[in-house]
Every structure is written in structure tokens, then in C-alpha cells.
């Protein structure tokens, strides 16, 4: 009844010696740079996204430092505007959108499917280099004065301000193609490269989430591409499409921009939710409650995300009728989100729970996604949104879903799949301490911001009236705690690479398909083609051998 019997012990079924792992398979920098191995590509993506994450995170620390006191603290207003724009642009386009799919997804997806690689390995490598090229354009823009438009590039400010706007917009444009090609690759891989026995109804929820994300990446990103292209043409050739003096409409830009960027936020959250499924299942030793409801919810979220874009524009001057329609549609997304939260919580009931470090991040996700999702209700409701739009309330809301949910899930996934990727363990005690620092720091930064926004503090402000100072200071101190936790966590991972303990092949006693391969996997992921005869969460069918030596005493 087991899934893959012999592979994890490293013995092939008559195919001779097991292959060496993918890290030791070939040596030298070039063997990595021109690799077609999805695992190595995933690792390269991981390193790149982490570099961008640290950079954009430092930008955030600078923003919060400036806001520690009213008036000038560290920098002038114009510099501040460039710093917060960089934070947003780099975090959105170079960290959060690629992080889970391209870094973790690339590594895990084919193994979880029982496949040797993705459908189009060379396209995969091309995706990576396109992403790097986009990053180079971004760096070039920074060197040439950067951009002060905010990551949303609203016209006419973005078409008339000085700065290296076209270079930065090109960076996002190019990175978008990386996203599209990765999406194409994953869709085809999930369709065509499932191992025998892996029916759609046995598809791990991580892959359902990646699948829904990939559909969004393919269909939504091109609209961003055309929007950015029009913006660049407006700036370089003055075509007048968004310029009111030339018969153009600045609000049209917002429609175009948010038609992509709303699905984009689902590109950000769906992979986070996808990881949480795996973490909760493994650390409760249960199939996620309501498996079918959960994957249908993922697809529903992907579909609904296309229908709600103008809820970012309730104050933009749209008609009352349009506002009504978009408010009503926006409430639709609350339902599948709620269904998922209830199912995840329900999975804990009468389960067998092990709170290892990945699970800490998974549980924090549940708490923080409640807050992020429920504060979305304030914003979907027209009357309250009018008051809260463009205030710190919105900033807090989206940081709760993008950071409190997705980044926590990403960190959880990083901890969870770290042994699989590196063959090493990290120090569990340090991981837990870092988690708590990150958790406390993170909530200290963003919880006060709901109050700031409700009290009327607008966003993207360099300076503020004295009555807002206390909460800003609390928020800034939180950022320091978060930074300590974050940097220490990174240091912990580096230490793991240098002298971490060797990982057993199934360190988390998981029944997930990816734990059936050796840890770390050989080049073609398995020594023998796996055949799946049970679902990935069928703990009642998994044998003791498959789950490995019990790690929890």
C-alpha cells in the first residue's frame, strides 16, 4: 500500500548503484549557471530572491527609521520617496512574486509529481536569466537616480516626474516575462508529468495552489506588460494616452494597472496558502480537512481575482454604480478564503500535532491571515473603505497578507524543505527563537498601523503630526526586532550549510510524495520511477518505513 518503497533507502530496483545527489553530481560555477536541473535553478532563484529580499528589507528599515520622529530624521522627502518606492518595487516584482513558485516551487514541484524535471527545462533556465536581466535593469535605474512614484506608478505623476522611471518600468516588464514562462512551464508539468497513480484527486494541495497561481501568472501578467509598455511610450514618446491635456485619461492607467495587480496579489497569496497545506498536513499527520473544498477554493480565488480590480479605486472618481458592483464582487473572495481557514483549523481537531519550527510558521500564518483577511472586509465595504483608503490601515492590511501570511509561509516552506534541498539540518532551537523574534517584531510593526490608519494617517507620508508619533515609534521598534530575527535566521541557515547535521531522508515523518525521494535527491529525483498507490496525505495507509524513524519522542 505504500507509495515508494525502495527509493528512500537508496537502493534501486535492479538499476544498480543509486545516483549521487544533485549537488555533488557536477562541480564548478558553470555547471550551476548553465544547468537544466530544476533543483539547481530553484536554488539559484532562492539565492537571488533572498538577495532582493534583504535589499528591500533594508529599504523598509530605512523608511521606518525616518518615521521614528516627525520632521527630518535621516533623509530628505525626495530621498524618502525613492526609498519607499524601491522597497515596494523590489519586494513585489523581485521577491514575493517569484519567491514561492520559482524558488521553492521549482525545487519541489517535479519531485512531488514523481517526475524527473519540469516540462521545459531550458525554458526554466531562460526564465531565470530573464528575471536576472530584469533585476539588472532595476539596479541600473537605482544607480541613475531611482524612482519616486510608488510601486503603483500612477499617472500623471509617473509620466511627469524626473528619475529613471523607464529603466525601473522595464525591469518590472522584463521580470513579468520570467513569471509568465514559469507559469506556462508549471501548468504543462502538472498536466503531463504526473507519475503513474497520481490522479488529479490525489494531487498535493501545494500543487493545486501552484497550478492556480500559474494560471494567474499566464493570464494576468501580460496585462501588466501592456500597461507598463504604454507607460513607457507615454514617457518617451508622449503618446498622450494617460495625459488629460491630450485627451487621455489618468484613471485608465489605474484600471489597466489593477487588472493585473489584483490577480497579482493572489499570485502572492496562493503559493503561501499552498505551502501551509503541506506544513499542516505533515505536522498533524492528517489529510487536510475538506481537501476538495480547499482545492476548489484555490481555483475559485484565481477566478474571482479577475473580477474585483477596481476595489482599489473606490475614491478614484468612478461612478457609484461601478463602486457598487466592485464592492459586491469583492465580497466573493471572502468566502473561499474563509473556507480554507476553517478547514486548516479543523484539521487540527483530534490530530497528532508536532510543533516543529515549520509548523510555528504555519500556525502564525493562520493567525495572521485571519487578521489580514478580515481587515479586507473593512476595505470591501464601501463606506468604511472611503475613510480607510490610502491610509496606514491599507498598508497594515496588505502587509498582513503579503508578509504575515505569504512571507511567513515562505519561511515555513524554507525550513520545511531545507533538509530536502541541502541534505542538512539547521539548529531547531535557534529556529524557534528566531521565529518568536520575527513573530513579535512583525506584529509590533503592523498591528499599530491599523490604528494609525483609522485615525486618519495617510500612507506614503514622509512626515506627520505629533499625535501620530507614539504609534510610529512602536512600529519602528518592531522593525528592529523583526530585523534581528530575520538576519539571525539567515545566519542560522548559513551555519547549517557550513556545519549542519546530516538530515535523515524523512526528517519530518511526512507522507508527502517528495519525501519518498532521497534527501537530497539525485539528478533525476528518484532512483526508480515512483508509482503512487495512495494519496499524499493518507497517513492511515503510509507504512512506518515510509515515514521514517520517528523524530518526535
Amino acid at each position, binding site marked *: 500500500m505504500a507509495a515508494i518503497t525502495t527509493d528512500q533507502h537508496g537502493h534501486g530496483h535492479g538499476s544498480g548503484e543509486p545516483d549521487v545527489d544533485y549537488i555533488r553530481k557536477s562541480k564548478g560555477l558553470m555547471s550551476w549557471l548553465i544547468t537544466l536541473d530544476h533543483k539547481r535553478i530553484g536554488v539559484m532563484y532562492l539565492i537571488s530572491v533572498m538577495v532582493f529580499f534583504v535589499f528591500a528589507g533594508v529599504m523598509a528599515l530605512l523608511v521606518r527609521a525616518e518615521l521614528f520622529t516627525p520632521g527630518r530624521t535621516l533623509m530628505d522627502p525626495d530621498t524618502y520617496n525613492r526609498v519607499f518606492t524601491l522597497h515596494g518595487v523590489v519586494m513585489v516584482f523581485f521577491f514575493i512574486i517569484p519567491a514561492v513558485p520559482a524558488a521553492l516551487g521549482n525545487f519541489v514541484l517535479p519531485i512531488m509529481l514523481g517526475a524527473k524535471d519540469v516540462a*521545459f527545462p531550458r*525554458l526554466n533556465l531562460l526564465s531565470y536569466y530573464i528575471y536576472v536581466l530584469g533585476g539588472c535593469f532595476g539596479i541600473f535605474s537605482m544607480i541613475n537616480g531611482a524612482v519616486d512614484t510608488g510601486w503603483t506608478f500612477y499617472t500623471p505623476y509617473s509620466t511627469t516626474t524626473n528619475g529613471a522611471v523607464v529603466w525601473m518600468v522595464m525591469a518590472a516588464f522584463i521580470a513579468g516575462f520570467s513569471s509568465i514562462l514559469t507559469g506556462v512551464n508549471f501548468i*504543462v508539468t502538472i*498536466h503531463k508529468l504526473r507519475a503513474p497513480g497520481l490522479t488529479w484527486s490525489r494531487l498535493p494541495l501545494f500543487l493545486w495552489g501552484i497550478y492556480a497561481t500559474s494560471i494567474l501568472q499566464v*493570464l494576468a501578467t501580460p496585462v501588466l506588460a*501592456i500597461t507598463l509598455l*504604454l507607460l513607457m511610450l507615454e514617457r518617451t514618446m508622449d503618446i498622450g494616452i494617460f495625459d488629460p491635456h491630450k*485627451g487621455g485619461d489618468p484613471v485608465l492607467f489605474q484600471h489597466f494597472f489593477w487588472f493585473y495587480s489584483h490577480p497579482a496579489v493572489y499570485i502572492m497569496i496562493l503559493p503561501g496558502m499552498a505551502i501551509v497545506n503541506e506544513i499542516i498536513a505533515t505536522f498533524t499527520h492528517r489529510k487536510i480537512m475538506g481537501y476538495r473544498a480547499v482545492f476548489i477554493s484555490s481555483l475559485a480565488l484565481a477566478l474571482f481575482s479577475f473580477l474585483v480590480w477596481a476595489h482599489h479605486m473606490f475614491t478614484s472618481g468612478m461612478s457609484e454604480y461601478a463602486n457598487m458592483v466592485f464592492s459586491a464582487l469583492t465580497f466573493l473572495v471572502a468566502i473561499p478564503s474563509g473556507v480554507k481557514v476553517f478547514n486548516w483549523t479543523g484539521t487540527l481537531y483530534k490530530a497528532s500535532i508536532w510543533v516543529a519550527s515549520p509548523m510555528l510558521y504555519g500556525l502564525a500564518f493562520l493567525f495572521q491571515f485571519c487578521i489580514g483577511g478580515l481587515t479586507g472586509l473593512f476595505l470591501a465595504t464601501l463606506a468604511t473603505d472611503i475613510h480607510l483608503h490610502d491610509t496606514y490601515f491599507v498598508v497594515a492590511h496588505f502587509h498582513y497578507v503579503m508578509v504575515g501570511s505569504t512571507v511567513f509561509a515562505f519561511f515555513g516552506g524554507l525550513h520545511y524543505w531545507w533538509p530536502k534541498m541541502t541534505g542538512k539540518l539547521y539548529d531547531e532551537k535557534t529556529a524557534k527563537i528566531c521565529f518568536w523574534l520575527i513573530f513579535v517584531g512583525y506584529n509590533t510593526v503592523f498591528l499599530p498601523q491599523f490604528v494609525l490608519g483609522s485615525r486618519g494617517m495617510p500612507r506614503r507620508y514622509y512626515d506627520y503630526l505629533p499625535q501620530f508619533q507614539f504609534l510610529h515609534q512602536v512600529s519602528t521598534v518592531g522593525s528592529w526586532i523583526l530585523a534581528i530575527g530575520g538576519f539571525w535566521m539567515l545566519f542560522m541557515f548559513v551555519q547549517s550549510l557550513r556545519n549542519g547535521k546530516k538530515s535523515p531522508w524523512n526528517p519530518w515523518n511526512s507522507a508527502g510524495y517528495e519525501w519518498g525521494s532521497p534527501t537530497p535527491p539525485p539528478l*533525476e529525483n528518484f532512483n526508480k520511477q515512483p508509482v503512487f498507490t495512495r494519496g499524499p496525505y493518507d497517513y492511515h495507509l503510509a507504512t512506518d518505513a515510509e515515514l521514517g524513524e520517528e523524530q518526535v519522542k
Partner: protein
Amino acid sequence: MTEAAAHADDHDHAHDEHGGEHHGDHPKWLQHHWDTPAQQFDAAKIGMWAFLGQELLFFSGLFVAYAIYRTWFGEAFAAGSHQLDRTMGAANTCVLLFSSLTAALSVRASQLGKKSETTIWILLTIACAFIFLIVKYFEYHAKFDHGLLPGSFFGTPRDMLSFSPLPPDPKVAEHLQELPDHTHVFFSLYFVMTGLHAIHVIIGIGVWVWILKRNLRGDFSKRYFTPVDITALYWHLVDLVWIYLFPLLYLIDYVPHGGHH
């Protein structure tokens, strides 16, 4: 986007269990991670359709902008459309339609393993694409000569290559004065839409040339013609986009000879 097309010689030989040579059940062109040729072919097709889906969404933004601005500036759009050369536009439409036919025929020939026939059809497709671009060049040239340019460049005749203004011509200036106020919006959209389309034609030529090279090299057979198939798919989309562009840009308020207006 024909990355799915593979030769074993592109792989790290370390990957390929069979050492990269042609084998009965694992031929050169079958990548190592696929079990059967059918699987690889299906995957390439799904991949290309997914890519075409995003291309459609890419152009759709422009069509939405067109719909909005045409609703607001109907008269200007009609006037702008009248400035376009319908004969050249219609000719280009026929050329592209024909090239879709030759592309489809090249796939058919490739499916039948007929290498030289495939070559001919591909060459014809490329030739059509070049004709399209040449006609486009003449069209654009006329717009530049008459100052029918996008956005703030509208109203000044310019040299197409150097972009510097041409000596003023009273007849041209008079003609421009007669055009309705927002005609420049039409031309902004005209150049962005046809320009983006032309870029896709140029990319298509590049891909077809590569497919031609591979065909001449003998890469394709009855068992393996996937790259030709998916390139033709891409080409059909390029044609399809033009089928929409032509009436929307060239035929606003068009009434054939003998009709009332």
C-alpha cells in the same frame, strides 16, 4: 517559444542515460524526462496554447484602450481611419491570411515527412511576412510625411529615419487643420497597436528562419514535427490579431463604392 523542441546534443550528456545517440525507443529528439513522444508533443502543444493565451491578454489591453477612446472620440477615430490606406491594409490582410495557409501547409508537409515541400512552404511564409513588413514601411512612411504621428508628435511631418522635421508644406498643414481635435489619440493607438504587431511579425520571421534551418538540417520527420506545428500556431495568432486590427483601424465608417454616406 519553441523551447520544447529539443535535440539530445543540447543536453548535458550526464543527463542522458542513453548517451545521446539515436535509439529505437528513445530517439535523439525525445528529451530525457519524457516517457513517450506523444507525451512530449502534447506538452509542447499545451505550452504553446498557454503562451498564446497570454499573448491574447497582452493585446487585449490595447483593444480595451481602443474601445474606450473610440467611444469618447468617435469623430476623430473616423477621420483618422480615413487617413489610412485601405488598399495597402487590405493587401496586407490577404498576405497574412495567405501566409497562415502556407504555414499550415508547412506543418502538413512536415507531418508527411516531406522535407523539400516543407522548405518551400516555410520560405513562402517568410516571404509573405517580409511583404507585410515592406507594405507596412510604405504605410508608415506616408504617415510620417503627413505628420500623422502619435501624441504630441502629431501635426509635424517628419523624416522617418532621422525623425527630424521636414520643411513645412502648406498643403499638408491645411489638411492637418481640417482634422478633428483628438485625431492624435487615434494615431497614438494606431502606431502602438500596429507597431507591437509588427514586432511580433519580426519575431515570427526569426523563429521561422530557425525552423527552416532545422528542417534543412533534417531534424524533422513523420515522428517529430512539433517545432513546426507550434511555430505555425504562433503564426496563426499573429495573423488573427491582424484580422482584428484591420477592420478596427482601417474600416471605421467604411462604406464601399456606390453606398450611401
